[in-house]
């Protein structure tokens, strides 16, 4: 049994990861583009976690960037300043701690839904933003630097060097792949069945005996800790964290990307982030007023493509939904 829900998804995923695997060979050490791709892939992980939350569970948040930023801060605060730590161990720490934070935040925000949830997540994210922006200890607006990148050995064997752009690129690509598979697996699971149900009709799910709060909370924690993982990768790539990572416009931009890609399609998050960043990069070189044209283009795209790019591709391949 396949994990793909339709043909276009399958084709896209195979193509994307095949191209992704070989593209560094063609770029021949052009670190600018390799870095650019790594950044977009990291962004895609973040957008994917948001896409699951908004598109699959129906919880709309404007504070997801809080976890993106926290992922970076948790690592930077936790790791000793002048000592290389183990990447995998700290991946575990970052996801565990952000998961615990998400659990507490979730207990508060999931009591609301719809517009109230948007407002309360936004408020919490802005609180966290200003906490870090005003803190002396954590570098204020300038944030914190990561002087030494972690090493990646497992049982003494090391095959990834995070200082090397190409190695880091492959780490990001692998992470995106794992993230995609993870979301597809939980969507197809028994848990996913209840999540589908409560998204469509929460009252009916309750009448059938489900405590929907528990399911929402789990989905929220999973999504948030993956967002934190993306923020952790981002911090490692650039060697610093600062409060702008968790500013609300990151959350909003990510929401736009999920809409572009096709809300709830999960793989659409990859399309959405590459499209947005690609358009951004392209239009930025054409005109000074890139924001204006970008905005207009996005309005047109969102209006014409009802289920985003994923829905468009699905129609192209003749699938129905």
């Amino acid at each position, binding site marked *: 049994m396949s994990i793909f829900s339709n043909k276009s998804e399958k084709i896209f995923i195979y193509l994307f990861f095949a191209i992704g695997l070989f593209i560094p060979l063609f770029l021949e050490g052009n670190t600018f583009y390799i870095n650019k791709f790594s950044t977009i892939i990291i962004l895609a992980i973040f957008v994917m976690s948001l896409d699951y939350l908004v598109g699959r569970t129906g919880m709309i948040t404007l504070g997801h960037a809080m976890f993106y930023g926290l992922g970076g801060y948790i690592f930077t605060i936790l790791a000793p300043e002048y000592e290389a730590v183990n990447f995998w161990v700290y991946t575990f720490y970052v996801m565990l701690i952000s998961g615990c934070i998400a659990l507490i935040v979730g207990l508060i925000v999931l009591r609301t839904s719809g517009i109230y949830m948007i407002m309360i997540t936004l408020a919490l994210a802005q609180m966290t933003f200003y906490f870090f922006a005003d803190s002396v200890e954590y570098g204020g607006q300038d944030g914190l630097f990561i002087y030494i990148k972690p090493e990646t050995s497992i049982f003494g064997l090391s095959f990834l060097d995070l200082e090397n752009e190409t190695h880091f690129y492959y780490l990001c690509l692998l992470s995106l792949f794992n993230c995609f598979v993870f979301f597809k*697996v939980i969507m197809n699971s028994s848990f996913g*069945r209840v999540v*589908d*149900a409560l998204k*469509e009709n929460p009252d009916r799910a*309750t009448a059938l*005996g*489900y405590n929907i709060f528990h399911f929402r909370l*789990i989905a929220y924690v999973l999504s948030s800790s993956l967002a934190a993982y993306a923020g952790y990768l981002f911090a490692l790539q650039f060697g610093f964290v600062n409060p702008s990572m968790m500013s609300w416009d990151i959350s909003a931009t990510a929401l736009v990307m999920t809409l572009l890609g096709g809300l709830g399609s999960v793989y659409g998050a990859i399309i959405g982030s590459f499209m947005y960043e690609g358009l951004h990069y392209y239009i930025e070189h054409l005109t000074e007023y890139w924001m204006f044209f970008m905005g207009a283009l996005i309005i047109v795209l969102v209006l014409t493509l009802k289920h985003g790019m994923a829905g468009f591709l699905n129609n192209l391949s003749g699938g129905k939904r």
Partner: protein
Amino acid sequence: MSQTILEAENLCKFWGGLKALNELNIQFKDNQLHSIVGPNGAGKSTLLNTLCGAYPATSGVILYHGKPITNLKSYEFCRAGIGRSFQKTNIFHNATCLENCCIAAQQRIGGSFNLFRKRSKNRQITEIARSALEQAGLSARADIRAAEVSYGEQRQLEIAMVLATSPKVLLLDEPMAGMGHEESQTIISLLKELKKRYCIVLVEHDMDAVFELSDLMTVMVDGQHLITDTVDNIRNNPLVQDAYLGNDDEVF
């Protein structure tokens, strides 16, 4: 004599000053179809919603197998075995009919917190769902999206979903609402089968169906219990005729 499964003692539900249920005492017995009739606004739907935990009671006690369950959370009523169907079709339109029943059955079987096991791997759930569909006469529609089947079939699906939760008590809120005569006949014969095995509480406006199906009838007026008796006695009861049925041909 079959035993009492579900009962309400002095049950009250107030909406502000409005007494939707006022000191209601009623008992429902196993393997019987007990219908509740009354004019609009008599509190029939409120009674069902209170019995299934959707509305918390203002005061009074609900006893299930002799134990009070008034303070359970709304989702715990279903787990206890009190299943309910809705007056307004309330299904998962994007899922297939089978999947709709699977969602219902999975609650009983468990494993809902399993993140990694494929949902289709749990045969037991699929079997329960299939047998629920079969009982409701929807086997042929199993793989069709719920939004695409006819209105009558959606009503049948509504009942199939309740059956898939393996309930002891079925609270049915106007299962024949908006149905044509032929579609109603399907539901009537379905309910005749079901009342042999379940305690059914039926709220229904179709009086022909009610007279045909009921073992016991309760007449409610203004949130209060007027009378509970067998169909024949209710028909001949002058009190009911005066207060409620009025002239023979009055429509309510």
